[in-house]
């Protein structure tokens, strides 16, 4: 099904759901300011459903908006791509949302386009897929009430760790240099954290002035403390949506660190893809007595 047909169906389903009273709101995307932008929209009236769009830039993961509706009893329909659906499971597993209060319309996703590159191109120009989408293994929603189209074939079967391996090849000093440069750029806007479905704390330690963890001193060391802490916090919980990198105004390759942890977890504790199901516990939430032993 082409994009336009999907979009037509999206609008139609949104209308039906709102008109039937099955849900009171629908979360989707509408056209953004520029052609390479889409932006989330919350629809309450069926007549607004025609604002919904489905195009190459519906990057935003809508699952996390559900946190804003935690304390309402309204039923919400939302559109989820493959990666978004893993985010949904992440939030379910972290007990932050309720499945019963949502109606998931899954969209098997062919991948989004590189929105950064788009800014220097013209509408209609050929664009590569966004970096994260190029190595997508789960384009089909893993949890849904209905699918909008037939499932698509995953672009990749195994995780592509070549970027992580490239860093691993470097010497320790080179690696340090690499991350210093990247983290010097960080402006600590916390967009990566705020967009991340695994970052769903009520109050992040970096927002607790007196916790002792937080320093508003923005320098490479503190930025790196922030980056590493966040990486550890989402270790085994990252659902690889790449939203952190997508929203970073400083173009920091945040997923690289996340993928490093995914790679190590796979290696040390067995293959694990977060958010595929809500069963079981994340790798750091349990252990095996015969876990590998790299210490003495």
């Amino acid at each position, binding site marked *: 099904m082409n994009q336009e047909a999907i979009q037509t169906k999206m609008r139609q389903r949104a209308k039906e759901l709102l008109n039937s009273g099955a849900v009171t709101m629908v979360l989707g995307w509408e056209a953004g300011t520029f052609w390479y932008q889409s932006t989330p929209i919350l629809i309450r009236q069926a007549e607004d459903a025609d604002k919904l769009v489905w195009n190459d830039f519906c990057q935003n993961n809508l699952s996390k908006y559900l946190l804003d509706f935690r304390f309402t009893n309204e039923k919400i329909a939302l559109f989820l791509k493959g990666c978004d659906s893993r985010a949904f499971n992440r939030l379910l597993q972290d007990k932050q949302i309720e499945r019963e209060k949502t109606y998931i319309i899954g969209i098997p996703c062919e991948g989004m386009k590189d929105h950064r590159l788009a800014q220097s191109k013209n509408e209609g120009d050929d664009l590569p897929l966004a970096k994260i989408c190029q190595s997508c293994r789960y384009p089909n929603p893993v949890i849904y009430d209905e699918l909008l189209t037939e499932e698509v074939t995953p672009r990749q079967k195994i995780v592509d760790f070549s970027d992580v391996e490239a860093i691993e090849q470097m010497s320790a000093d080179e690696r*340090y240099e690499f991350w210093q440069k990247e983290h010097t750029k960080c402006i600590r806007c916390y967009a990566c954290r705020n967009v991340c479905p695994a970052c769903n704390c009520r109050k992040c330690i970096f927002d607790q002035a007196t916790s002792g963890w937080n320093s508003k001193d923005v320098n490479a060391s503190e930025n790196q403390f922030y980056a*590493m802490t966040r990486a*550890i916090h989402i270790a085994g919980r990252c659902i690889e949506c790449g939203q952190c990198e997508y929203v970073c105004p400083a173009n920091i390759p945040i997923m690289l660190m996340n993928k490093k942890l995914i790679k190590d977890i796979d290696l040390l504790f067995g293959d694990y893809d977060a958010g595929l199901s809500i069963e079981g516990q994340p790798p750091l939430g349990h252990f095996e007595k015969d876990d590998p*032993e*790299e210490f003495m």
Partner: protein
Amino acid sequence: MSDHTEQIKTAENGFEPKILVFACNWCTYAGADLAGLSRLEYPPNVRVLRVPCSCRVNPQFVIRAFQRGIDGVLVAGCHPGDCHYTTGNYYTRRRFLLTKRLLDFVGIDSERFHVRWISGAEGPKFQEVVTDITAAIKAIGPNQKLCDYFPTETLLPNEGGDNQ
């Protein structure tokens, strides 16, 4: 240990590293006490911070120590299966398997961070481990990475005299 002996000889720069040891109360701390009771000498570079269990050690503590300029960190607890709290060190193992690799990934020299299982009976092992780690860190010199230095030029003079 012998691997490092030569390096140490060449690194006679007077550098004395400071090394933080997170020790679990039941095994490693007791092991360190046993080293003392047995008068097993080791370099005075290590400082033990007592925690109830190695699973109390948050990887963020380790990163913070490096930020503050520590030259090396050792996290030590009971051997797997011997945890006073049954399962604590199994979590320690998972957490720090990842943390060590992450520290490595951001370029911290692998000599600077260690995890060891040292039981309450292993006074000699405590001695050996901290001796080895001290020697290795001496050889690679002071830690400059991740440090968040406090600008020395801004330090104010000590008042002295009229405190208290």
